[in-house]
């Protein structure tokens, strides 16, 4: 159940131990260790769709069913990405609350950082609550 928020409030963070098994039909070698290491990465990158899912679960946990039909998110994937075993924590901080015809739209800065505090996802999300 969503609580009443004001600007500056943070919604409950969500932490995941990043893990992404290789999907058999995956074509993108960026998600495979050999290729990723050859190209200067720490290892196979966890797919962006998985990282996004961690952030979406944090937002769903706060906004509930409303997120499924009133949620918006816009993020960039930054830094060196995430690899299996990284401890990733998603955060959301309220930056604006605006009235719309169908209710109040709450806009949050959202980000996800790894165990070293390095951000791997940054952006904005909003939902009519």
């Amino acid at each position: 159940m969503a609580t009443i928020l004001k600007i500056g409030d943070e919604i409950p963070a969500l932490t995941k131990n990043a893990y992404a098994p290789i999907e058999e039909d995956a074509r993108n070698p960026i998600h495979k260790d050999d290729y990723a290491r050859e190209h200067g990465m720490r290892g196979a990158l966890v797919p962006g769709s998985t990282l996004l899912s961690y952030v979406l679960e944090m937002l769903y946990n706060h906004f509930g069913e409303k997120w499924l039909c009133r949620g918006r998110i816009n993020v960039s994937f930054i830094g060196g990405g995430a690899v299996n075993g990284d401890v990733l924590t998603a955060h959301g901080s309220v930056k604006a609350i605006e009235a719309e015809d169908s209710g109040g739209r709450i806009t949050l800065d959202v980000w996800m950082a790894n165990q070293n505090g390095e951000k791997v996802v940054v952006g904005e999300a909003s939902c009519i609550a």
Partner: protein
Amino acid sequence: MSLEEDFAAIPIGLDLGEWEIVLDEKTIKDRAALTQWQTMDVIDKLKAAPPGQTINLHAKMQFAKFTNLRAAIWAKSEHEFLKPLKMGSKVIIRGKVVDKYIKRGRLYRVSEFETVDENGDVLMRSRETGIHVE
């Protein structure tokens, strides 16, 4: 052709095709497990897929279209959720290339996707930016 030549040949407006997926319980739960989704009320009580459940298919649609593309990195991802993706329903995803640009020597392609149900109702709109790499 080289990566750059392939990129130059991509027309803005290129249709990425149409993919269908039936969101049965197993499909939803398998995907939830892959993404470590743990808030199960969306599946068990609302009988819907967790938000973003089908977003990985956008990448697959693009790799299916760009058969010479070896690798890509996701740069940006934007989504608007309009209706729940109901368990047991069939959804259709349509995509197209809407922009491309080169910045600091990197090749960026922007694609938009619309996810609709069998009645044509729009469930989700997406806009994604990927970088083509060797």
